[in-house]
């Protein structure tokens, strides 16, 4: 079943106008905070009514302004994972999970809650109060609670934002395994670039209430520069690259930037060698030196020439040509002390962990 959304709603500072469809599988709703993602999710869930438009899941209409149809949240058969999880603090994990199964006989409730808690690897926590459960496990219990009702779609509002990458990807793998058998549309809201690419089968980019790009992760990333995901996430530097070497023992890889001889040391990821990927670097994460730095922990140090400079507010934007063009942001004080000017030869310094990999 495919979720189709075409709605409008007036918000305080802008008009939310969303038109997209989400097939079975994970669709990322990407945008910065305040872009209207959560409002959009609440409209789909039935917590807020749009001003106009239509929301349908397969053949069943959830909302239609013209036909005056507006199913309540309870009628929409939707799973919703809130950003703060919203586990009921006075109930145990099992009671939380069984909350949505009130219409079933007690034995069936127990059977289903035990099964889903086991499937999500938190069966041992069934008797614990929701507040006595630790970080990543709370997310699993909350996920179990939204999956146990066999929802027709699942909405996730940055529920994993607080978790580390490993815990996060383990939970997402379990969610994928669950959805392999269920095949429902899953809308996953995030403002993290890496999450968007690690998780999504498709990406919908929201900015100020409008959908500005949609498609597969790579398609969206290659959209016109002003509208890319990387730009929204504050990554001014984005380079196509391929993996040249993997050092599993060091936890790093070497990436060759396409169209240049430049190689960057980057953190180790699961990307298979040869797969297309992008390296994203924030302009503020790159350092400029006028002499080659020695005895420094940063691993990527290479020469370049200043191609252009401008100021934005109290910051200097320096474009450095080093085989590819890097955008670097420094303070006005740094610019003046180092006598930076177009044509000057400089060294660029980038830490391994300032290089963010996004795979297609």
């Amino acid at each position, binding site marked *: 079943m495919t979720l189709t959304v075409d709605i409008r709603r007036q918000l305080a500072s802008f008009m939310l106008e969303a038109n997209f469809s989400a097939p079975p599988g994970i669709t990322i709703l990407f945008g910065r905070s305040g872009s209207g993602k959560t409002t959009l999710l609440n409209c789909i869930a*039935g917590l807020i009514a749009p001003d106009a438009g239509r929301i349908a899941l397969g053949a069943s209409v959830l909302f239609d302004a013209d036909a005056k149809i507006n199913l309540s949240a309870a009628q929409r058969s939707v799973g919703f994972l*809130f*950003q*703060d999880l919203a586990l009921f603090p*006075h109930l145990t994990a099992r009671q939380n999970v069984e*909350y949505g199964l009130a219409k079933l006989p007690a034995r069936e409730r127990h059977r289903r809650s035990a099964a889903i808690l086991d499937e999500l690897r938190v069966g041992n926590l069934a008797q614990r109060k929701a*507040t006595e459960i630790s970080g990543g496990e709370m997310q699993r219990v909350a996920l179990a609670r*939204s999956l146990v009702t066999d929802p027709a779609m699942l909405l996730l509002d940055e529920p994993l934002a607080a*978790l580390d990458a490993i815990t996060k990807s383990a939970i997402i793998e379990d969610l994928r395994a669950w959805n392999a058998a269920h095949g429902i549309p899953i809308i996953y809201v995030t403002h993290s670039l890496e999450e968007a690419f690690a998780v999504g089968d498709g990406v919908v980019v929201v900015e100020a209430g409008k959908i500005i790009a949609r498609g597969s992760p790579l398609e969206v990333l290659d959209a016109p520069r002003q509208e890319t995901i990387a730009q929204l996430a504050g990554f001014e530097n984005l380079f196509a690259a391929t993996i040249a070497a993997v050092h599993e023992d060091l936890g790093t890889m070497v990436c060759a930037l396409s169209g240049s001889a430049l190689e960057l040391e980057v953190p180790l990821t699961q990307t298979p060698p040869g797969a297309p990927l992008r390296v994203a670097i924030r302009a503020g994460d790159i350092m400029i030196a006028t002499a080659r730095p020695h005895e420094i922990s940063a691993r990527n140090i290479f020469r370049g020439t200043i191609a252009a400079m401008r100021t934005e507010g109290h910051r200097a934007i320096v474009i450095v040509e080093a085989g590819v063009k890097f955008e670097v942001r420094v303070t006005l004080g740094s610019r003046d002390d180092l006598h930076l000017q177009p044509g000057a030869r400089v060294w660029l310094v980038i830490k391994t962990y300032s290089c963010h990999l996004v795979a297609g």
Partner: protein
Amino acid sequence: MNWDALFLSLKLAALVCTVLLLIGLPIAYWITFSSWRWKFIVEAIVALPLVLPPTVLGFYVLVATGQQSPLGRLYRSWSGHLLPFTFEGLALASVIYSLPFAVQPMVAAFSLVDRNLLNASAILGASRMRTFFRIVLPLSITGVVAGMVLSFAHTLGEFGVVLMVGGNIPGVTETISIAIYDDVQALNYSSANHSALVLLIFSFVVLSITYSLNRRMWGPWSLRRDGARSSAPAK
């Protein structure tokens, strides 16, 4: 020591408490969750007894339930007598008088319940009634208990309203606070002293038990709720 008056006061306070629990919960729920634009008028009416002199409140209850008023005549045709100077009349006046003491702690507690929990409950298919009894009420039980204790204590100690509406009929409307006043007027200090002491000890014991229960049952729980909040993901 006027035991009849003491028992009458306790009976009145228990009855008022029960009635306030039954009508206070829906009123508090409505005040907390309604988005009606004129809601503040209802809030003001509920809070009026906090600022009105008891004599003013008593006066209006007298007028509203007397034989000149349609309400009073309706009650008489149904029960055979008028409300003023009866135990029921006293109970009615006390319910109105103590209403804000029950409703305000409930409203405060209800509004502290995270709205996302209510959304989560709705998405999991729960009706508003089920959400109230399974989520809102358990999470605001301290506020509800506080409202009950406050209205019980307030009813036990009221004077002006009782005098206006109940008169001072021994065994029917003579409450302990009025008995003490009468004793003092009659220079019967020893009896007044006994009654006052019993009332003082009783109030102290009730409050102590409530606070200790609060600490044992709900104290650690509310601590844990805070803990949950701080470990929740940051926005």
